[in-house]
């Protein structure tokens, strides 16, 4: 019997219906969704206006802005899901495993459905500014070309985000590939740095020619090609325009093929968590749980148990591991990238080695603040297993403290190392106590903010093979919580950072280290105390919120 294959339209309709059902009768989620949508549209509108206004600038500036902004969009779509939001998996490919749908049809349908949602619409609105600018500058034909380019660019970004996250999910599932995945991830994240460097260069004086050079190169890569289209058309080089379209479409097709491929393996993959280390160690159950180095430091009890469990699960749970790897890599790359892009105003590469204090401090602060993002929804990692905490009446504050300590033990060494390395490599050793002080303050404040966010706004993670998946609709708004927590953390630790910048030459570097550490510790204690009290009273509600809904 012939079965009609579903059309892309059917997938889109399914997605819209699922988003709608997700919002129905859930006031908080609806409010969140509306706020996110309105905020996104306002932001998108501002970007649109800004980009449209560039039509008043010179052609070269317009070209540079278009290509760089376009590259940012595509690169952002590619990389941001790995760090913050996760990809929208409202339509879980695994759900289609039992249906007789061909791979190509499924991939096309999923792609079409991926355009439904707040982030794609906002991106589309924002980049429409480029279309308007092209229209004002060169007339309707160029505007049409810009429209084609913008849509093609967004498609590329969406497909890239899908393909990359599925591929990473597959990589992180297999144990052998884990380390390779970490390296790949760091390479990807590092690719943000040169871009940032170019932008800061362009922003600096008299380096527009340099920026234009970079833009011309980017315009031949898949990232920027789509956005250079109107400029080719305007000067009548249809051959160049066709070549660029070919680059973008080729990339889309290639990524789509790759994605369809990983989709198929994801559909049938069962994510086994890898087995526990099978060493000898017959020292009893407690010795099994608490590693040898930990036992002398922490008394075996509820605190030690949670701490030890967290340390083990950060690596064993695929979702946690994905988050941990991303955040550690980001906090390694950020200080380096920001410190170096911030130095020697406008002529990167030839500055005389003096590390700019502002860039360095901002880098350290960003790195430290990243840690908290991981814990903003910490109870969701437990899911229904959190019930065992309630059953044994663990004190909320103790629970939160153990979780924060475990994460700090995992990320702090890497962060201290990179801050130290930056100082040593640039010869700015006197900055080291400043960097460490700011790091301590932001880590402490970040974990504190996360503790509060996690007890106030917990939400269930989808039961899904893809560690980057979020149940979107509400998901993109929930993803914003992490970003919001990051912003609040930076704001709250600003006094220490500003102090460090202002006092860096006053010979009081060690004072900043002490003050920063005390500030972080105190902020964390205070936040844990408050959040712990909330958790003691709202434990069952938190459990109910993080329980995965049964299909």
């Amino acid at each position, binding site marked *: 019997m012939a079965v009609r294959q579903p059309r892309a339209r059917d997938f889109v309709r399914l997605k819209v219906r699922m988003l709608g059902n997700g919002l129905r009768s859930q006031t908080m989620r609806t409010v969140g969704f509306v706020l996110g949508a309105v905020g996104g549209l306002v932001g998108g509108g501002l970007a649109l206006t800004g980009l449209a206004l560039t039509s008043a600038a010179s052609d070269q500036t317009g070209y540079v802005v278009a290509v760089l902004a376009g590259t940012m969009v595509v690169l952002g779509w590619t990389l941001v899901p790995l760090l913050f939001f996760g990809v929208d998996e409202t339509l879980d490919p695994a759900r289609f495993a039992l249906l007789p749908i061909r791979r190509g049809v499924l991939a096309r349908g999923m792609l079409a459905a991926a355009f439904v949602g707040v982030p794609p619409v906002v991106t589309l609105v924002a980049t429409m500014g480029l279309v308007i600018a092209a229209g004002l500058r060169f007339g309707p034909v160029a505007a049409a070309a810009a429209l084609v380019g913008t849509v093609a660019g967004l498609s590329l970004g969406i497909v890239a985000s899908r393909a990359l996250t599925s591929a990473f999910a597959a990589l992180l599932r297999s144990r052998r590939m884990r380390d390779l995945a970490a390296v790949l991830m760091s390479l990807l994240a590092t690719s943000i740095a040169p871009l940032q460097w170019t932008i800061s260069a362009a922003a600096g004086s008299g380096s527009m020619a340099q920026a234009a050079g970079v833009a011309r190169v980017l315009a031949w890569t898949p990232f920027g090609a789509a956005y250079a289209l109107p400029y080719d058309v305007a000067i009548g080089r249809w051959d160049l325009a066709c070549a660029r379209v070919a680059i973008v479409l080729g990339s889309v097709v290639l990524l789509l093929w790759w994605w369809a491929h990983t989709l198929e393996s994801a559909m049938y993959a069962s994510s086994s968590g890898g087995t526990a*280390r099978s060493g000898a160690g017959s020292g009893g159950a407690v*010795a099994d749980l608490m590693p040898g180095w930990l036992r002398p430091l922490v008394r075996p009890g509820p605190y030690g148990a949670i701490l030890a469990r967290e340390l083990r699960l950060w690596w064993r749970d695929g979702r946690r591991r994905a988050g941990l790897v991303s955040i550690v890599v980001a906090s390694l790359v950020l200080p380096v990238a920001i410190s170096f892009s911030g130095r020697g105003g406008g002529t990167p590469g030839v500055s005389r080695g003096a590390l700019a204090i502002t860039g360095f401090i901002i880098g350290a602060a960003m790195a430290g603040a990243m840690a908290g993002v991981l814990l903003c929804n910490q109870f969701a990692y437990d899911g229904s297993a959190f019930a*065992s905490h309630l059953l044994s009446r663990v004190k909320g504050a103790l629970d939160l403290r153990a979780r924060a300590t475990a994460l700090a033990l995992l990320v702090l060494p890497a962060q201290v190392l990179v801050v130290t390395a930056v100082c040593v490599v640039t010869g700015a050793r006197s900055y080291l106590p400043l960097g460490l002080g700011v790091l301590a303050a932001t880590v402490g404040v970040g974990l504190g903010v996360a503790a509060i966010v996690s007890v106030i706004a917990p939400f269930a993670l989808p039961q899904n093979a893809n560690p980057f998946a979020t149940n979107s609709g509400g998901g993109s708004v929930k993803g914003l919580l992490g970003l919001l927590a990051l912003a609040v953390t930076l704001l709250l630790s600003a006094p220490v950072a500003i102090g460090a910048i202002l006092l860096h030459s006053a010979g009081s570097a060690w004072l900043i280290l002490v003050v920063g550490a005390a500030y972080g510790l105190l902020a964390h204690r205070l936040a844990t105390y408050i959040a712990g009290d909330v958790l003691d009273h709202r434990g069952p509600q938190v459990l109910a919120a993080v329980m995965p809904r049964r299909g």
Partner: protein
Amino acid sequence: MVDGETTAPVMPALALRGLTKRFDSKVAVAGIDLDVPAGSFFGLLGPNGAGKTTTLSMAVGVLRPDAGTAFVLGHDVWSDPAEAKRRLGVLPDEGHMFDRLSGTELLAFTGLLRGMEPTQIDARARDLLDVLGLADAGRTLVVDYSSGMKKKIGLACALLHAPRLLVLDEPFEAVDPVSAALIRDILQRYVHTGGTVIFSSHVMEVVEKLCTHVAILADGAVKAAGTLDVVRAGRDLEEVFVEVVGGRIATGQELSWL
């Protein structure tokens, strides 16, 4: 409907009083009163969606009821949780454990979380793993266990602190006959030594074979409760169950295309 008057004023092991829970607009549990006598082997029967899990979750203090409360050996689960939870062991539904820990790690974690002494945890964990036939699987992650093994490690966690009352949600669901027999034996031994067991199920044979008392739950309310013989009243338990719950029987006219 309460059956505790055989030995005058004995305190019930578990007493539910007016437990009510509403999800959005749907009433899941509509004011349940139930006494589980100390020393009884109590079966909580009900079709899917009857509110068994919801009731037990509220009884053990992991789901906050909209109204009513529960007493474990006289201690209010919601106002005096420390005392109540010390006397309580719970086998949660599958997946309600930290399944990325190995069996021994999970036992150690559970024990430490309850504030037990490490030496005691080690000794009891060894005993439990031995009896439950999990000694070899101690180092495998619980997520890779079979359903039967998961139930058994859950039971071990529930028994570790030697509670006086065991609350088990579907302990025989998806368990192979060999494991089921072992779990049954352990539970029976536990009741013989003075413990109390209440478990939910929809398998009549198991309940008929094991239980001294049963309650039938449907649409969030207790439809029948008492000793097994009283509820059965000389009939087959399945017959009583279908009648009380109000199921339908296929006549053979439907699905003629099959």
